[in-house]
């Protein structure tokens, strides 16, 4: 007997997920899929990333061979036009007629376009498919002002995309009195509005559009209050309309405001026809998110596999992605007193608004809104969904347990019940994740993704998955040590001691003695950094264990080109040297830019040009700037007493001395310094790993500052010291860091993790509490004495130069794959 046939209409996210679930559950069906779009189902949730360079193929939900491998017949670019329920057949636009036993409608939705005069004009778009984005991108190239109609979840995402496309002026038009009216309240909206403003978005609320002006092409929007906004393009994001036209034509029951009516088994009014995803209307509601659609797919698959499962509605909590501002709403966000107790926390300075709604007895969390800081979202959502009993002072949920440390966060996740849904996209519970750790020895997020699929959807649950893995391992008594990777059971510090005591010089020897396997991209650079930190040998001698940037002594960039950054100590440079940089840049067609570190970066060099470029720079007296290494970058300086009317001492001279002293030394992460001539701090020394600021009596030394994503001010290590003392403390500080920090840990993080913190560090450096002061000074002096410009060594060594050819069998040819395009008056590497 032949297998019953399931025909799926629509190859979107939910239609695909249905196929995936069905083939993994049962081999008893023949599956045929009709898709209207020209390509395989792709990840619409991450559609905006198409603009930031993810290709259609990257976004695809499956590999090109997946359907064939699973025996699924896929007919793309061929929408179903008619369903003949009496004969149980579908008829497609290309004229194919096929018989089904079960029919699954997964036709999704389309963007709702309001009936405003002028919507047909050129320059008006919707935001739903890859083709929509291609059209927008092409048009945006010539647009100066862009607007988005609709201030909801999707509208804001589209607005951010408009900005990212480089349109200088962007507007959001919302009909309602607040942004994201379905998710957040008016106080939250006000906070969000001011945040978006700072991102460069102009927000217009309470605006209804009368018509779109312009001849054939949009030129502006005219509102009901008669005001006019000139725009060059408009993206309409005013809601979605379920695609129910096919169902309607077939006489299936449709909701009054659209959507294919389904029961809790996702059956339509015809019991052999199902509807799932955004086209389905369940209990008066269209679920415009992907997770409920996946759940619906699971319900139908269960039904076909003769397992009883029902759809019971779905949690619509959401966290906004991409926009550069955290926004989340969960559970019952809008319930108000007296039906609940509401706690609100607002910090207008930082742009943070948080609201939580708590049951009147104070026991349970009902829902809430987070703007500006949504780190707690996952845990709060779990607290609602699992009806966890709240702590006695629920405001801790908003402010974080004050005084507690972050390890508690992990404990919170472990306290969830086993059936708590952690990954809602793939419906993976806490129990399943912990089980994977216990039963299948899964210890990394990547392995967990493979094993359970948790975290492969929107990715929002990944932090929780991490905590659960670590928490379960701890609970199992598995010793969680800071080991480097699967090849070494040692921490960086332990390995450094072993290598030093046993005087080992080569990676392979380290691996043979203390590791296993053949190493990897994690432990090789760590050992390389340790070897450099101890012996300061020329790194290119062991090139293949260096991180790619260190292997080619340059930072790799888009298109596989590299950047060239000569050292300019303290930011001081002669006119002659400036001319050399300009000449070299012109000769090799490099894009030049002044960096944030007071020097000049030359971008877009072919790998095979690097030795020649450096030869010319070195001849003019330049040295490597180590912009590629985990080593000293720059010591920024202000002009100081030489020119500045406030300057107390000569900050430039000191900065140059310090930069030259520590240049080339490898460390666990990069190192940056600064020297300011007075407390006005023009060199931003307190944002650096070490900062020196002139005082009336000498210099103040600050350490462990950081810019980057989690900025942190440096802390005072010693005040009013003279230059010599300053250098001595710096020597000790830097070497202590090099010896004890974990891989890729900046000084700020290193200090944050240090038992005893700053007072401990002061004791070690100033009071020499460990008795290692002199040793540290000697060790760093050895590194200083063995300094070499690694580019000079390469330039002078033909064997090493050879390693920079792109093709080993065609040394004179450049990589034809590298493409440039014009940008202002220079060239840039082609987008990926």
């Amino acid at each position: 007997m032949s297998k019953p046939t399931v025909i799926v209409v629509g190859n979107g996210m939910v239609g695909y997920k249905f196929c995936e679930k069905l083939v993994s559950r049962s081999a008893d069906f023949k599956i045929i899929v009709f898709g209207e779009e020209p390509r395989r189902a792709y990840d619409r949730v991450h559609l905006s990333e198409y603009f930031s360079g993810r290709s259609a193929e990257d976004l695809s939900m499956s590999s090109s061979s997946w359907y064939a491998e699973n025996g699924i017949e896929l007919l793309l670019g061929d929408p179903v036009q008619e369903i003949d329920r009496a004969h149980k057949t579908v008829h497609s636009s290309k004229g194919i007629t096929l018989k089904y036993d079960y029919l699954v409608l997964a036709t999704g939705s389309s963007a709702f376009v309001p009936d405003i005069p002028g919507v047909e004009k050129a320059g008006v778009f919707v935001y739903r498919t890859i083709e929509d984005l291609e059209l927008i991108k092409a048009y945006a190239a010539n647009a100066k002002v862009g607007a988005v109609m609709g201030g909801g979840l999707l509208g804001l995402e589209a607005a951010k995309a408009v900005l990212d496309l480089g349109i200088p002026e962007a507007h959001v038009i919302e009909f309602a009195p607040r942004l994201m009216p379905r998710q957040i309240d008016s106080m939250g909206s006000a906070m969000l509005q001011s945040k978006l403003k700072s991102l460069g978005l102009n927000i217009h609320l309470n605006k209804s559009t009368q018509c779109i002006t312009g001849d054939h092409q949009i030129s502006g929007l005219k509102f009901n209050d008669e005001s006019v906004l000139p725009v060059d393009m408009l993206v309409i994001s005013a809601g979605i309309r379920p695609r129910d036209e096919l169902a309607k034509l077939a006489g299936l029951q449709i909701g009054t405001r659209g959507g294919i009516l389904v029961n809790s088994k996702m059956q339509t009014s015809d019991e052999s026809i199902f509807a799932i995803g955004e086209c389905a209307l369940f209990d008066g509601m269209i679920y415009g998110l992907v997770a409920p659609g996946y759940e619906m797919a699971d319900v139908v698959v269960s039904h076909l596999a003769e397992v009883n499962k029902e759809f019971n509605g779905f949690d619509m909590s959401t966290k906004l992605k991409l926009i550069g501002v955290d926004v989340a709403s969960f559970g019952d966000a809008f319930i108000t007193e007296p039906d609940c107790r509401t706690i609100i926390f607002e910090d207008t300075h930082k742009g943070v608004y948080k609201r939580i709604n708590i049951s009147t007895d104070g026991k349970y969390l009902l829902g809430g809104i987070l703007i500006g800081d949504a780190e707690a979202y996952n845990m709060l959502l779990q607290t609602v969904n699992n009806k966890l009993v709240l702590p006695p002072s629920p405001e801790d949920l908003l402010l974080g347990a004050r005084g507690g440390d972050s390890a508690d966060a992990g404990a919170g996740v472990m306290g969830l019940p086993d059936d708590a849904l952690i990954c809602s996209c793939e419906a993976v519970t806490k129990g399943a994740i912990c089980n994977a750790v216990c039963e299948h020895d899964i210890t990394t997020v990547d392995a967990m993704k493979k094993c359970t699929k948790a975290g492969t959807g929107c990715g929002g649950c990944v932090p929780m998955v991490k905590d659960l893995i670590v928490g379960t391992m701890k609970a199992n008594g598995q010793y969680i040590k800071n080991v480097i990777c699967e090849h070494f059971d040692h921490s960086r510090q332990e390995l450094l001691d072993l290598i030093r005591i046993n005087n080992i010089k080569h990676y392979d020897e380290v691996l043979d003695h203390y590791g296993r396997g053949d190493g990897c991209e994690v432990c090789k650079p760590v050992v390389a950094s340790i070897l450099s930190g101890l012996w300061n040998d020329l790194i290119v001698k062991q090139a293949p264990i260096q991180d790619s940037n260190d292997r080619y002594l340059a930072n790799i960039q888009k298109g596989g080109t590299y950047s060239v950054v000569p050292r300019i100590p303290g930011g001081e440079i002669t006119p002659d040297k400036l001319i050399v940089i300009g000449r070299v840049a012109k000769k090799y067609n490099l894009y030049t830019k002044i960096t944030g570190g007071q020097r000049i970066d030359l971008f877009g060099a072919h790998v095979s040009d690097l030795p020649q470029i450096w030869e010319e720079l070195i001849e003019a007296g330049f040295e490597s700037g180590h912009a590629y290494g985990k080593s000293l970058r720059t010591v920024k300086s202000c002009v100081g007493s030489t020119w500045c009317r406030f300057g107390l001492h000569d900050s430039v001279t000191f900065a140059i001395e310090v930069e030259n002293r520590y240049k080339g030394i490898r460390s666990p992460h990069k190192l940056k310094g600064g020297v300011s001539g007075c407390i006005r701090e023009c060199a931003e020394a307190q944002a650096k790993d070490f900062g020196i600021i002139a005082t009336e009596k000498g210099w103040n030394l600050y350490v462990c500052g950081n810019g980057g994503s989690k900025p942190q001010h440096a802390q005072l290590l010693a005040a009013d010291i003279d230059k010599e003392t300053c250098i001595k403390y710096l020597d000790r500080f830097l070497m202590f860091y090099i010896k004890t920090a974990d891989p890729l840990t900046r000084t700020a993080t290193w200090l944050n993790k240090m038992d005893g913190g700053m007072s401990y560090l002061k004791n070690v450096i100033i009071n020499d509490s460990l008795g290692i002061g002199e040793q540290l000074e000697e060790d760093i002096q050895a590194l200083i004495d063995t300094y070499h410009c690694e580019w000079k060594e390469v330039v002078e060594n033909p064997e090493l130069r050879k390693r920079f050819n792109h093709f080993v069998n065609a040394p004179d040819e450049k990589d034809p794959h590298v493409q440039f395009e014009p940008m202002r008056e220079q060239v840039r590497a082609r987008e990926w």
Partner: protein
Amino acid sequence: METLIDIQWHMACYADDIPENGGACVKLGNEQIAVFNFARRGEWYATQNLCPHKQQMVLARGMIGSAGDNCDPKVACPFHKKTFSLLTGECLSGDDYQIKTYPVKVEGGRVFIGIA
């Protein structure tokens, strides 16, 4: 399983063109192929040079190593550290990518790549 019929061997480069325990790129016709000299294991591998993640011609500049209890050989792309099996070309970082792999033999100091 691999069938070795119809494979044409092309001389790609000399063995000492490829750094020990590292890779380099060779050009065969219009194709760019990454060749790896896994000296630690006495093995050679070849794959496409293009990283499927962001279409970058760089896998030859990636770091090689091994993964798991069976020590499966792999290469990590220098850009975003996606890793690929040198045996099967499968992406080992949880994504759905697949890269081409080629048979390699070294004879008399010359490296040959087999193209089917």
